[in-house]
């Protein structure tokens, strides 16, 4: 329909940075040696992995690069950490996570629950903020593992990992903490030592590396069994010939992201706020689903009352604008987002919730354009709604 492309779905995936691609290319061309090989030809690919490991170590501020394991994605990082730590602590049967976790953690927990684990799912308030008191009450002597995401993929709401860690360790110093940091990498600084995570996972394609590579930090005090068994790679913690070009790309992406954090915190945030305020001011049935919660700088989640999300996305797509929705219809599942349900987003707005997520490539022009067309899109859909009286009342109250 439109030649224009305004990509505001960076929490789903991101554009690969040119410099990342450049870093990868030699290993997709001439430098194809298996890094485990003995000859000099393998030196460059083996060095590429070493260097990338140092870059990831610095990116998350690990104590040693020995604490970094390369994986294929965030989901593999989560599965390795959770299953790996539990199989080392078989006597303990209690595990905790949150109700708003990404499926890569939540569904692992549900599967463990079926296998007989006692699971507590900690709730959030209407802003999406974790109930720390509930967490504190649930940790006990039998708790093997707690998994808490660093920031939520749908809302961008940041969890205070340092406080979470403090609470857990004060109740049971042997309980391990896994942090799914996929949605904060490249958006806010990560410091595993300061925040007290025992394990932490990231995924390359969320911060301008390609899809198919991720990393898992496991501190030296935490022992896990491998998920994938085979060769000696990654010190036996993740077998399989190393994906050299992608690992090199991930290292480069970490380096660039680290340098870019200031831009994220200032420019990306400014554009996000401009978009958010524009929509909330100009569209009468828009509501900010997260209220005043502390969020990553690139994400906003806005509910449009009495209209449905997929239809909003389809009209946006006709104008070349890409975003996501928590509505049931977009996923093929029949229920709206588990995150928005856990937040008790009103049923009038839950199906019409749209997530906009920006990146360093988002321009002022992009945001101005989206702000200029969103009111017409929503008005077009509002006309179809069977809730004309309710909409008129909303319009009157907002005075638009």
């Amino acid at each position, binding site marked *: 329909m439109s030649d224009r492309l305004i990509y505001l779905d960076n929490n789903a995936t991101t554009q690969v940075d040119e410099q990342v691609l450049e870093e990868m290319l030699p290993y997709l061309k001439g430098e194809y040696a298996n890094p485990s090989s003995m000859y000099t030809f393998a030196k460059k690919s083996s060095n590429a992995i070493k260097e990338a490991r140092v870059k990831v170590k610095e990116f998350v501020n690990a104590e040693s690069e020995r604490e970094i394991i390369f994986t294929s994605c965030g989901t593999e990082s989560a599965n390795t950490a959770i299953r790996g730590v539990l199989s080392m602590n078989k006597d303990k049967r209690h595990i905790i996570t949150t109700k708003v976790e990404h499926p890569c953690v939540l569904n692992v927990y549900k599967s463990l629950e079926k296998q007989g684990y006692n699971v507590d799912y900690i709730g959030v308030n209407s802003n999406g903020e974790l109930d720390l008191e509930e967490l504190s009450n649930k940790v006990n002597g039998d708790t093997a593992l707690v998994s808490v995401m660093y920031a939520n993929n749908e809302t961008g709401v940041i969890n205070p990992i340092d406080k979470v860690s403090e609470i857990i360790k004060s109740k049971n110093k042997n309980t391990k903490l896994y942090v799914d940091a996929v949605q904060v990498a490249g958006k806010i600084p990560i410091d595993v030592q300061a925040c007290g995570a025992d394990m932490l996972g990231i995924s390359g394609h969320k911060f301008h590396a390609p899809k198919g590579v991720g990393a898992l930090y496991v501190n030296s005090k935490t022992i896990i069994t491998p998920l994938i068994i085979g060769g000696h790679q990654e010190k036996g913690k993740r077998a399989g010939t190393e994906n050299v070009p992608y690992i090199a790309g991930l290292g480069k992406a970490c380096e660039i992201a680290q340098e870019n954090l200031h831009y994220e915190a200032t420019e990306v945030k400014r554009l996000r706020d401009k978009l958010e305020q524009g929509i909330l001011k100009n569209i009468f049935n828009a509501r900010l689903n997260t209220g005043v919660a502390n969020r990553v700088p690139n994400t906003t989640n806005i509910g449009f009352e009495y209209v449905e999300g997929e239809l909003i996305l389809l009209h946006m797509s006709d104008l070349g604008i890409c975003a996501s929705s928590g509505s049931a*219809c977009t996923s093929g599942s029949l229920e709206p987002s588990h995150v928005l349900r856990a937040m008790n987003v009103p049923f009038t707005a839950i199906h019409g919730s749209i997530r906009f997520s920006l990146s360093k490539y988002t321009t002022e022009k992009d945001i101005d354009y989206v702000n200029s067309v969103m009111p017409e899109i929503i008005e077009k859909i509002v006309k179809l709604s069977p809730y004309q009286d309710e909409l008129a009342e909303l319009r009157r109250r907002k005075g638009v």
Partner: protein
Amino acid sequence: MWDYSEKVMDHYRNPRNVGKIDDADAVGNAGSLTCGDQLKIYLKIKDGIVTDAKFQTFGCGSAVASSSILTEMIIGKSVEDVRKITNKDIADELGGLPPEKMHCSVMGYEALEDALKGYVDKDDLNQALNVVNGKSEIKEKIVCTCFGVTENVIWEAIKLNGLTTVEEVTNYTKAGGACGKCKSAIQDIIDTYYHKEKKVKEEAPVLSPAQKILKINNIIENQISPELQKDGGDITLVDIVDNKVSVRLRGRCSGCRNSNLTLKAFVETTLKNAVDKNIEVIEVN
């Protein structure tokens, strides 16, 4: 990304006949805001012919397209012909819908059915009343408590579209698409439709009254109560007289407003499937 046909895209981009008819002769409603899609259809009928139709839809692209094309399909047709339109006709007219979106066409069909149920043809008052009475009784049996889908809707979807699996039924009616508790009940309806029920019935042992009471108690305590507790609800067995089971219910369903009504239906369906198809659940306070 859904694989929508050109016609679906045309209809959600440029929906026809949007709005309300203030002096409509028939109005139909299907779905609800809580469930994520809702359609209201308004008909003007003169001398047994639908002279005008308008719609209001809260829903996704395919829901709007289904509603829009439905109004085009019925304007100018006789009420008699309109009554024959099925969800399959709507989907076909749109050039097909993705399997997961077939329930949008079913919603169009349901709204139309609802409109015509309320419309009393003066020449054929008795027949119309029969339709109302006959259908409304069957409609009471809600199978999917999350989306409020009745046995009748599932039965019709199986019949009209030749559905054979629970997954297909979910795609067409949404039933079983949320908590999934009713999946075995859906399977039973499919089996019944394809005459597989006989075998089960023959094999089922005849229970003595005492055995029956024990079994009901057992199922409520060990199957139904834990399920309800998961959602913050609970059930207490109060009394059993013949096939009448009195229970006290406390429910909190995730989305729907009619949660207590649907809760009762869930309990009843579970007991009917497990113990006796004649069981009636009575809610007491």
